[in-house]
């Protein structure tokens, strides 16, 4: 097990090297210039040249790339051009909203998705099954950004029940924070729940066809007991996989939700950083989200072992 773990972690290193190189080259080869944006529309060409020099952007690209590798190895992600602080500090400041949003959306997704999947599977072919799966299908098909806009319009502007957008930390004002989080978490979670519901259903179906379930039924075990006691635990592995994948994806990618609901998280940070060519921030956020993504995948793999004793790693 330990040897396996070490091997898996070592295997992550080349992946991260690929990520680092791709992101560096991509962002530096993009047309656009952070300096022209920073100095404003009326800046003159001489001003722009001087500032490029002071940021080291006039050096050859390979030189900048190797400097970048060196800094990353020392744990230094550089300094944001725009935000006047080290990238690591900027990342830490934005991590909380994204983590909270991810957790809430995941909660919503699991709370809607898993029960729907189980019910649909238990009553396969019934009206319930059809209605739930139609809902799940719509959940996949409805464009999330469009749904968010309609939510804001309906619940914030028309009905006035919830704030339109914004963010407050749960540590500061828990009640207000919850109100801010409802719409984004629901509109993001709804999309994700569709996926979880469908996977849960098909995994449950598969398990329900196994012999031991038939045995349990034959023994006269109630439907509820069969489903909860026997079937669900065995359907859990793929469900956990998809929840893990969902989580990895949410962390890096609640971008559109963060933009529409004005949540100051990592997603919004990186989009604005791409737009204004804040190279160090783009590199930093991608590095961290990519690392989170591969680590979560690893964790999911390892979790299998605990849930399903049939899986062994050597």
């Amino acid at each position, binding site marked *: 097990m330990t040897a396996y773990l070490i091997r898996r972690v070592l295997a992550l290193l080349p992946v991260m090297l690929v990520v680092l190189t791709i992101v560096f080259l991509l962002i530096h080869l993009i047309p656009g210039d952070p300096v022209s944006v920073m100095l404003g529309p009326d800046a*003159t060409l001489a*001003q722009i040249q001087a500032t490029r*020099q002071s940021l080291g952007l006039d050096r050859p690209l390979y030189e900048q790339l190797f400097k970048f590798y060196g800094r990353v190895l020392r744990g230094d992600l550089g300094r944001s051009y725009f935000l*006047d602080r080290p990238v690591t500090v900027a990342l830490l400041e934005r991590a909380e909203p994204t983590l909270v949003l991810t957790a809430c959306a995941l909660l919503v997704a699991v709370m809607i998705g898993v029960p729907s999947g189980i019910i649909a599977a238990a009553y396969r072919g019934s009206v319930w099954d059809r209605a739930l799966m139609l809902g799940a299908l719509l959940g996949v098909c409805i464009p999330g950004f469009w749904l968010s806009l309609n939510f804001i319009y309906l619940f914030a502007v028309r009905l006035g029940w919830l704030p339109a957008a914004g963010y407050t930390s749960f540590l500061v004002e828990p009640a207000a924070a919850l109100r801010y989080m409802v719409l984004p978490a629901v509109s993001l979670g709804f999309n994700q729940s569709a996926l979880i519901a469908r996977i849960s259903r098909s995994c449950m179906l598969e398990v329900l066809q196994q012999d031991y379930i038939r045995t349990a039924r034959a023994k006269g075990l109630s439907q509820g007991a069969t489903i909860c006691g026997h079937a669900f635990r065995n359907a859990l592995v793929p469900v956990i996989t998809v929840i893990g994948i969902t989580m990895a994806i949410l962390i890096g990618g609640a971008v559109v939700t963060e933009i529409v609901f*004005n949540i100051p998280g990592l997603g919004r940070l990186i989009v604005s950083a791409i*737009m204004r060519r804040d190279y160090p921030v783009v590199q930093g956020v991608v590095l961290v989200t990519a690392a989170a993504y591969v680590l979560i995948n690893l964790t999911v793999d390892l979790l299998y072992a605990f849930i399903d004793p049939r899986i062994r790693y050597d």
Partner: protein
Amino acid sequence: MDRSGLFRTVVAAFLAVGLIGAGAASAADTPKKGGLLRVGNLGEPPALDAHWTTASITETLTNHIYEGLYSLDEANRPIPMLAESHTVSRDGLTYTFKLRQGIKFHNGKEMTSEDVVASLTRWGKQSVYGRILFAKVADFRAVDPYTVEMKLKERVGIVLISLAVPNNFGAIYPKEIAERFPPQTKITEYIGTGPFKLAEWKPDQYIRMVRFDDYKSRNEKASGYGGGKTAYVDEIRWIPVPDVATRVAQVETGELDFADDLNLDAYERLKGTPNARPIIGTPYYWLVAVLNKKEGLMTNQKLRQAWQAAIDVEPIMKNVAGGKPEFYRMDSSLAFAEVPAWHTTITGLPWNEHNKDKARRLLREAGYTGEPIRFMTTQEYKWMYDFALLTKQQLEDVGFTIDLQVMDWSTLVQRRNNSKAYDAFTTGIGNFFDPTHHVYLTCIWPGWTCDEDILKLQDELAREIDPKKRFALWVRQTRQFYEKVPVIRYGDLFGLRAARTTVKGFNEKTERIRFYNVWLDK
């Protein structure tokens, strides 16, 4: 021209008096201190260093923290701010400024001539306006703790106005800060003399400014950007809300007290919202297509004239303004009507001719055979994209071929510096307070207006100090502009802001928002 100029000044003065009177009458409720003012704006400033960038968001924010020697009054004329008074020597070459005494920086230190010299020297090396002025300065030094002296190489008419412009302005920092950060490096310690001091800056979350209790206000009445300033609110919290629809929604729901840069379509709805009201921001920009006169197709003056002759400005402006006449103004003057000293009313200029036959004739004379014209614009500023798209259709109707290239703003501002990359690009011309500050009439700004005659007039304008003669030169420059067409002037566009009804005392007449003298009635 002179007479009409005088007439306008008088009218403007009456209007100003009338407005102040009306303001006083309606402000029956007296100002009170306290409260948190939440302001939604569209993004993050690249810096809080006024010397360093021309970005308008930096201008708005830094003017609450810092002050310069001069400021602008209601009619956009220079008035003293940190300066007490000034004298000019007989030969016009030496300006002596007396500073106000007992002015405290946010760190408790008193402001003296040393700080002024260090700050303005830094500003003179970095700022667009500072460099123009300091190119003419022979020596700038402290005479005594409350007196500074500026010796000029030659007589120029732009000393006070340059010190008064609010954009990229000559903010006074403590000497230690001005000297520690070289001009190309933005400052990261924010200490000024303004009515608010920076408390906290959390990028993409908020910028908090709190009242500076030791602020010493001028005794004059508030006027324009200058005069007496009182910080009534305890705190201004600037919250970046990049999505425009969200900004509007947050004012409606009361999550914001004030929002800037809204989409004009929200105007009607804001009028119907009981607890909020729309505010029309005048002026915002005049829309402009800047033409590349260094390389490519647009070096051909006939082709530039054809573009100018072809466009029908009113429908374009009306569409950009969301169909609302409140939000645009048809004007050919290069200076806004809000700057009465430089606003011109010349008739018969070839502006907004929408003469298709003339355009076609000019195209023929130019020898144009349908080569695509690369026209760059961006959606990050929606109005730019809108007028570019409408322009494309109008130009193609007379025989142009327009290759409309939509890109993000950071690509556009980079690419426009490269004379090989484009033929035209969109932007907006904001408020300039002196004829020599109009960047599109210089050879050092994208588009490269290096025409000798234009530059010669610019030079004369810089040297001349008699206001009447300067105005006459400016009228000549305007006529010359419409003949040589360095850029295409469209109409004036206004901006939309929204305030909760609890926000009182807001000066609606300034180009950019200011929150000193504003109080909350909650």
